[in-house]
Every structure is written in C-alpha cells, then in structure tokens.
C-alpha cells in the first residue's frame, strides 16, 4: 500500500470517528428517552471506530512524529508552523556552515600562498604530495 493511501485510510477513519462523537454530543446535549437506542448504537460505533483506528497502527509503524509537533498542537497552534520553522532553521544552518567552509577554504589558500613565499622548497614538496588545490 502506498504511503498516501495509508494516511488517507487513517484520515478517513479519524474523520468518521470525530463525526460520530459530534453526533453523540448532539444526542446527549438534548437527550430524549426515544434516542436511547441511537445513543447505544453510537457508543458501539465509537468502539468499532477505535478498533478501525487501532488497525491503522500496523500500517504506520514506520512513521515517527517529532514530539515538538505535539507541543504546537497542545498550544492550539498550527503544526505546519513547526515544519516551516524546521525548514527555515535548516536553511539558516546550511548557510552558516557553507560560510564557514568557504572561509576555511580561503584561509587555506592564503596560508599556502604565504608559506610558499617563506618555505618554497618545503611547499613544493607538499604540493607534490597533495597536488595543486583548486582555488576557493
């Protein structure tokens, strides 16, 4: 089963479950003696709904959810904000590391350049071993 289908199945079951609970709430909010049978049925639908959701667990055992997402949901915030912040953080860190790497490369070339002036023979040997470095 494709990944999207697995999620669709879970989503569908969750939607049905939520809808059933909502209907249960409507019955209970203004209860009439005649609606006892309907209430009993809804309660059993709730159990079967939970069974269906539990079955989906087997298909999604390889999915891991970061705990931070739950914090967002608990605070009543959109969990997509977590994804957004993760992407922004990743890009910022990526740029930071790239900057460091570029700076180190520049430093290396300058150091080789200066060392060549002071120790030309040794640096010639070094270059023979290492080969010519590409310019940064």
């Amino acid at each position, binding site marked *: 089963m494709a990944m999207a289908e697995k999620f669709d199945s879970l989503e569908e079951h969750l939607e049905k479950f939520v*809808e059933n609970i909502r209907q249960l709430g409507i019955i209970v909010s203004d209860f009439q003696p005649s609606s006892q049978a309907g209430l009993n049925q809804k309660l059993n639908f709730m159990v079967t709904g*939970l069974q269906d959701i539990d079955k989906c667990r087997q298909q999604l055992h390889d999915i891991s959810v970061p705990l931070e997402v739950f914090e967002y949901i608990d605070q009543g915030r959109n969990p997509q*904000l977590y994804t957004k912040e993760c992407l922004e953080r990743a890009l910022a860190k990526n740029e930071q590391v790239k900057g460091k790497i570029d700076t180190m490369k520049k430093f290396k070339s300058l150091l080789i350049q200066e060392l060549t002036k002071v120790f030309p023979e040794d640096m010639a040997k070094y270059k023979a071993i290492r080969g010519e470095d590409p310019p940064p």
Partner: protein
Amino acid sequence: MENFTALFGGAEPPPAAAAALGFGPAKAPGAGAAPPPAAAAPPPGEDAARKAAAGPFYLLRELPGTTELTGSTNLITHYNLEHAYNKFCGKKVKEKLSNFLPDLPGMIDLPGSHDNSSLRSLIEKPPICGSSFTPLTSTMLTGFRLHAGPLPEQCRLMHIQPPKKKNKHKHKQSRTQDPVPPETPSDSDHKKKKKKKEEDPERKRKKKEKKKKKVGGNSSSCRVMPRTSCPRRPVQDPELHLCSWHLPQSCAPRAGNVFSRVLPTNSPRRSRAQLHTGPAQGGGGC
C-alpha cells in the same frame, strides 16, 4: 620555558591551522566524535610507507573525499524539498490550529492544559486500559441510560465554535463618492420610506415564487454539492437542503430526525457532513 614545554610537548600534535592544511590530525567537528578511519592507528608497515611518501612532513593525513555531503551544498535542493520550502515559507502560514483543522468541532485553539486534553499528557500518562477494544454488551450499555432534558450550558462544550472572521464587504461606492451632507428629516424622506415599504411585500412575494420554482427543479434532479474541505466523495444532495450523516437504516434521514437540519448551501459544516452522507449503509461503517 617550563610552561611552554608543558603546554607544547614534543609529542603534541601540531596546531589547528596546520591540521586544517592536512599536516596533522585535525580534531573531528563536535566534541566526542569518533575519529575518522584514516586517523586510526595504522599497522607499523603501513606507517613506514606513509612516512616515506610524506617526505619531510609528519602525521600527514589524507584529505576528506570531495564526494562527501557537507553544508557547502544546498541541502534543501539536494533532498528535493524546494516545493515544501516554497509551500511553507513562501506564504504566510496561519497561526491557529483551527486553520489547519477547520472542520473539527469545539474550541481547539485553546491550550490543551486548560481542559486537560493535551497530547503530551496522553504520552506521559497513558490511560490504563486493555490492549483491545471490545464492543459494549447490552448489560454494559445500561450504564449509559441518560435522563431526558438538555444539558446545562457549562457542559455544552461541543457546540462552542471559535468565532470566525467574516469578510466585511465594504461598499466601494460609498468610499469613492464624496460624503453626502446629512439631510434634515423632511417629508421627502417619509415618502421614500413609504415607497420602500410598499415595494417590500411585492419583492418578498417574487422571491418566494422564485424559491419555490428552484426547489421544484431540484427535487426532480439531484444536485451534486461542491466540497470545500475534503474532495474525496461528492455526494448527491437530498431535497430541501437536508443534511444527513452516515447513519444506519434505523436512523435514516427523515423529517424529524435529530441528524437532519437545514443548513445554508455554503456552510462548512455541510461540506463536512457530506463526507459521511449518502444512502444509509446497513448498520456498519460508522
């Protein structure tokens, strides 16, 4: 001098700059990181060969491979995440949880700690229950016999919905036109009002007639309602905008049913309900 020798002993590795050049063993990034395989102590024969190859330089290591993935490449493009980046970072993501789950009933934007419904508490203190769900027997269901009557207001959490912002349609004409000086109430105003009052019942009649015509037309051909949130199953709308849910045969939609109510055509709840609408399926499925 003693201090100097203590700090930089003969067997000490060269400084970091030299290590960066490949002269000596550079410290791996991050404390406690395992040394690379090249830094591991080689066998004595191999060491001698390396010394010969290195010439006057000691502790010469091989440079890291250029194929290694580092931060110098754009990792978002490397992992094909441009679409996700543009989706989430290109436009403003709405802050509230109800914007992400617009069809969920209740006040979901409130913190979970308020009503002890947080997911974290569910993880930290999982409910004590069995591993399987068993249907309730008739004897068990006797525990759910309720008294007739409405719930008190403070218990009606299900019906509370967050206030939705409505787009106010501002009249462009009133903006563009110059402000009209307020007229003093005169006879002409009264006449206008009277005229309006006279016209109103006629208009109402006309509207009613139109509505009747429309309803008649719909009853003959079922209309497929557009789904706003979940475009999974378009469902045919029964007549008179009655909204029915996924119900068993015994609770199939009828005029006085608890689950049938009149909703406006563009109501979000309507589109939600349509997910489970359809011919009542025999008992199962809910």
